[in-house]
């Protein structure tokens, strides 16, 4: 009787993680609405965009349709295929990162060479590299499981590869993407059982390296100084952050109401991209910020829960990848929101699933689709079905 009920429960239980799907769709939806709200004034005042107030809305909507379609396709790809393709996709990512650095091919926006012009849209290889790196490191860790304790056989090859990726990204420069990829890689290595002493050394090396990078490059130093006290130079280096903080202060608990932001009226630069959360904070208040944070936390928690089940099914690549994707979405959203709130220096990182931008949304949607696929395969295995 009881086993029958359990069996029926199992058979009737949904075949995918509904909460994760809904959280993803809600974040995409809030993102679309807020991108529109934040971009109206920017678009209306831009002659190059024909003073078209819905310029960004239309594009973001198209990005969403393309990304959701791509996500649906990715969901139908078995994890075995992803694991098999991981090294090749990583090589493709490296090739794109090289391509983007070639003058004439890579497009410079705002002092950084981050985009590849593909007919109508600009492709940002670093966004896809985050996904490819997570796959590659997860696959590497599984393949090298036996030698993960070894410094020379387990750690050195990965260190070399990461220095290569880091070198390419910092040449664009795209410090934010490098920080996220480093976080993904280190997390997967850590989870994969890397020797604790090696890991300690790696952390020290990274800290030293980050400090060196910041102090060696004047523009990064400026960002750090501007971040420490935006009110010291509120019309210069602290301009953007001071306006973001004012937006938070104006929002109070419940916000000034959707569409009521003053900061988005050309005061706050990048309101529809990197500083979207500030507009959320001003228009929807702390309640809005809390909602966004809660939704991202749920993605992180589900990613680790899915990973745990994958481990129980002895599907280690899926487990590591699920956690890598969770760390990606989690760390990138934390860094972006931390920047918005003045906890971290300005990085040029978007808010996953929400900020305006085709490459970011597409990569995020594929990542979430893969997470759903891992869970989907977990459930099938639990039901005794083939993955």
């Amino acid at each position, binding site marked *: 009787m009881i086993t029958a009920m359990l069996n029926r429960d199992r058979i009737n239980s949904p075949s995918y993680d509904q909460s994760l799907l809904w959280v993803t769709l809600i974040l995409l939806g809030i993102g679309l609405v807020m991108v529109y709200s934040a971009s109206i004034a920017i678009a209306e005042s831009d002659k190059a965009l024909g003073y078209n107030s819905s310029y960004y809305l239309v594009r973001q909507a198209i990005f969403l349709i393309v990304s959701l379609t791509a996500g649906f396709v990715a969901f139908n790809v078995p994890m075995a295929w992803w694991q098999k393709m991981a090294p090749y996709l990583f090589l493709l990512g490296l090739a794109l990162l090289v391509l983007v650095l070639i003058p004439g091919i890579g497009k410079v926006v705002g002092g950084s060479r981050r985009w590849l012009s593909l007919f109508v849209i600009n492709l940002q290889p670093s966004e896809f590299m985050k996904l490819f790196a997570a796959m590659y490191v997860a696959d590497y860790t599984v393949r090298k499981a036996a030698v993960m304790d070894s410094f020379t056989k387990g750690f050195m090859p990965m260190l070399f590869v990461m220095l290569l990726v880091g070198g390419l990204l910092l040449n664009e420069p795209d410090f934010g993407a490098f920080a996220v990829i480093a976080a993904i890689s280190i997390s997967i290595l850590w989870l*994969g059982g890397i020797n604790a002493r090696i890991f300690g050394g790696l952390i020290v090396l990274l800290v030293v390296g980050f400090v060196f990078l910041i102090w060696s490059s004047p523009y990064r130093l400026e960002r750090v100084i501007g971040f420490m006290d935006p009110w010291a130079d509120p019309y210069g280096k602290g301009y953007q952050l001071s306006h973001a903080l004012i937006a938070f202060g104006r929002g109070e608990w419940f916000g000034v109401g959707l569409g009521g932001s003053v900061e988005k009226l050309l005061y706050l630069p990048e309101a529809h991209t990197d500083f979207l959360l500030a507009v959320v904070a001003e228009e929807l208040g702390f309640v809005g*910020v809390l909602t966004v944070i809660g939704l991202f936390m749920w993605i992180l928690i589900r990613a680790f829960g899915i*990973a745990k089940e994958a481990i129980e099914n002895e599907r280690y690549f899926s487990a590591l990848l699920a956690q890598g994707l969770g760390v990606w979405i989690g760390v990138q959203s934390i860094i972006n929101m931390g920047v918005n709130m003045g906890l971290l220096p300005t990085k040029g990182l978007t808010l996953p699933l929400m900020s305006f931008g085709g490459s970011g949304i597409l990569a995020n949607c594929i990542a979430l689709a893969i997470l759903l696929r891992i869970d989907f395969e977990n459930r099938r295995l639990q039901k005794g079905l083939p993955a």
Partner: protein
Amino acid sequence: MAMHTPLVIVKLPAWRRRLLLVLVLLGFAALLGRGVYLQSFHKRFLQEKGDARYSRTLVLPAQRGKITDRYGELLAISSPVESVWANPSDVKISASQTKKLAELLGFKKETIDKKLANNTREFVYLKRRVSPELAAEIMQLGIAGVYLQREYKRYYPAGEVTAHLVGFTDIDDKGQEGFELAMNSALSGKNGSRKVIKDRAGRIIEDLEAVKVPQDGADITLSIDRRIQYLAHRELTKAVEKFQANAGAAIVLDAKTGEVLAMVNVPTYNPNNPVNIQGKTRNRAITDIFEPGSTMKTVTAAAALEAGKYTPDTLIQTAPGYMSIGPATIHDAHPHGLMTVSEVIQKSSNVGAAKMALSLEPQYLWGVFNLIGFGSKTRIGFPGEVSGRLRDYKTWRPIEQATMSYGHGISVTLLQMARAYTVFANDGELKPVSLLKLKDAPVGTQVFSAKTANEVKSMLELVVLPGGTALKAQVLGYRVAGKTGTTHKLGDHGYEKNKYVGSFVGMAPASNPRLIMAVMIDDPSSGEYYGGTVAAPVFSAVMADALRMLSVPQDAPNNNVVIPNDVEDVKESI
């Protein structure tokens, strides 16, 4: 199928997973804490910073009140103009736009660049007070960061004719002269304000507080009759030019109410463009004193009649044409011999006036001078008014008492002298003067009995008739009563030998005076300088037109004027 059956056992310790999850969740927790701090505890500070950046208090300018004449004719009115300003840090301007802007504003290109170079300021005037049409053209250039501000420019339709009375305002619309200065606070009203949030492009998004509506300034109705003002200005200007005088002033009073119907000065200036106005802005009729001379004899005679010691027909011996008082001697222009009091006035004998004055107590004579308004301000409410000079009778020496009787050693304003003559038009009652229109005739001060006042008025009629000093003051169809005055000008070292002030004070129609006019010509250098020659014709010309304009009934036939060429003026004593 490495995926399902790994060749080696992968170590995935659960504690490592939990530690990582907790670390990342701590990151989210930090964000939540920071969010609460920013959006509740720190919000006041942040909102103040925000207000400082995009809230602006806009001034809603109150419209300055109008100044009109007694019939509502405009003498000063504010018309809207635009001031072009820029916020240099917001300005986006191309080279061709700079060129066009410079052309429209009438600047050099470099001037524009220089004004916009100052990035530390958020408000720079490019040009103030341009016409609304030009402002529209400038805004059509579509330069970001360039804005308009509504202001009002004062316009004076009567220009130089009323310049001294009305005055003018400076570029900030603050009164600088005349009534614009005297009644500045009433005229300016109270500016309103509006606190708003603006977007970065300067457009108003919302109001932060209730709009404070501006309170427009009060309108002021002067007692002036613009037509008579024009007449007086025209005739005075003519006389000053003809006799090559340094300056001139004239006042027309309503004889019954004391209202000033005209007050003009030469030289004058254009209040619509007040440049090179040094020495031209003084309303001499109120702010300058002069020794009146023989116009004072009228008051002396009235005091003597009022004291009961004389009648108009009392004979006074003025021979041999001079008189010694202590070491000093006073003179008449011609020896006249035995004269009645009326003749003393008609022919303006210094000796006769002095003898009358010396027969009176100093205290009594001072009391008359004081009561009739000499030595104290008229309180007409005009900036810069002076009180004149009337010394205390206790310090009077006989020679001073004698010379004061014919207007020497005493200083008055032209307004004081005009006011003094209201006594002879109102049965002995001195009317207060006013530059603002009155509803009713004010009650004055009784200085003389009606009998005395009317007897003296009759004497004044003789002055303009053959045998008098002011034949040129006659007016066709109206009887005129008046008195001339001519004095040496007072310089830094006593009287100047060749500089004179000629004046005339009179009223018409003499049977029931309607208008009183006082004219003063300062330093005529053409060779003519007697009041009867330089000032009386101004009186005559203005009175003739003004009385007809006011439809005052005639009290004389149309052939009453004795052609002055036939009979010479009697030269008055100086």
